[in-house]
């Protein structure tokens, strides 16, 4: 088990290999469909959001606000990442992102982006919203909530020991590509 703490250095990212299990501590920013499209179209990050050495989490959490106005994440698993395939590589390059947490894996463009920019894809367990919410210790802030709605907003989250698996590394290796090729071969044998 490798422990990652944000901000992450390029050297740390380059040392990670497909299949490594990691835990993440520090700060992550959620961002999904609306945020990726907005940033890709040239939108600026809101003041206070710095992704340099940081992690984007593909997630639309369930959040509740208490009487003091504090936000609490009550469910927060990853959403399917492949929808961000058209945008992800450019966004990691432009903003210096070192890690992307999501589920289901991403495609060749993102894999090439990981190699070029020194970034990894970290697979969370899809649907495990309660286990993962327990690793979110604090909501620091929220951005674009009015514009994009709560699930699509940028939530700035403090995390502690958040578990994930490296399934795409910065050396052009993708577990998803390997499994898809092997399962295609198995399928052809079984038709």
């Amino acid at each position, binding site marked *: 088990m490798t422990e990652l703490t944000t901000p992450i250095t390029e050297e740390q990212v380059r040392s990670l290999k497909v299949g490594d*299990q990691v835990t993440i501590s520090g700060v992550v920013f959620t961002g999904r469909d609306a945020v990726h499209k907005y940033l890709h179209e040239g939108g600026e990050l809101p003041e206070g959001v710095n992704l340099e050495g940081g992690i984007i989490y593909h997630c639309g959490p369930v959040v509740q606000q208490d009487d003091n106005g504090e936000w609490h994440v009550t*469910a927060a698993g990853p959403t399917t990442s492949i929808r961000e395939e058209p945008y992800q590589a450019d966004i990691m390059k432009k903003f210096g992102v070192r890690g992307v947490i999501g589920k289901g894996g991403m495609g060749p463009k993102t894999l090439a982006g990981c190699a070029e920019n020194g970034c990894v894809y970290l697979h969370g367990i899809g649907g495990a*919203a309660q286990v993962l919410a327990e690793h979110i210790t604090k909501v620091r802030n929220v951005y674009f909530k009015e514009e994009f*709605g709560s699930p699509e907003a940028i939530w700035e989250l403090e995390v502690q020991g958040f578990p994930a*698996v490296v399934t795409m590394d910065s050396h052009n290796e993708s577990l998803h590509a390997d499994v898809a090729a092997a*399962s295609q071969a198995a399928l052809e044998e079984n038709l």
Partner: protein
Amino acid sequence: MPRVNGQSTVVHRALTARGPIRSVGLCMEPLFESLIEIVRRTSAEIPDDVQRGILAALENEKKDTIAENAMKIIERNIALAKEKSQPLCQDTGSVLFYVDCPVGFDQVTFEETARAAVTEATKRGYLRQNSVDSLTGKNDGTNVGPGAPAFHFHQHRGDQLEVRLMLKGGGCENVGAQYSLPNTPLKANRDLDGCRRVILDAVQQAQGKGCGPGILGICIGGDRATGYERSKTQFLRMLDDHNDNAELDALEQDILSTANKLGIGPMGFGGNTTLLGVKICAANRVPASYFVSISYMCWAFRRHGAKLDGVGEIQEWLY
């Protein structure tokens, strides 16, 4: 939106159908509370039949692999969600009601009450603010809008009222597929072997993106819309049941065992369990069309249901 306090007499009258009265005399207040409880339970508690399948899948994975570890986290998540009464998955999905009701049942008032219950369940955090205006992109936070929640009513001549609820997440919905046969690249003709080929192709295309191990609901035939609709109603079946039709039963078992030889595994990490179950129905088609409609359900298979009594109180859980 209907209000629930102190109006049950008025509402009682409104809910009873005019003419030949076969409807149960629902009261809004108990029905409202019952529906909130059905939403809460569906969101937080995985049904027993699904949990048994998940435990078997956990046992079946090779020890100390990332696939086994994924199944362990899933198992822990199921326990934690139930204990905390919080959503199993943050994507609380499309809210789909299936209502079996007597002839003459007042569907309109049921829908109004259910919409109010869904809004309240969202406020309580059982559902994420999950419904977006497709044209403006706005999310008003109520989970109510055109087509949301969705209702499927089926009337019968008895006096039972059964309400089933499915919360179907977007990740698994996105990997659903509809094939029109024949399909040349897949060598799929208009027969059961052709169906088998396209269904297995859908599993291969889905990989781990639908949060496997998954469950397939399939309809062979129908038009495009009813094919998909019926494919989803297959998820109302118990996971460990058998198809009444021997041919479809054999196809279900075959697809299940073949899919589990593909090695896609939990989350697409590679592993022994790619699917937990396969459920297939058939519908008549017109001679020109031959659709195979495939819905994929994630492991976080959220569906519950209850028999309700004459005033809308929960009598008995169905799963």
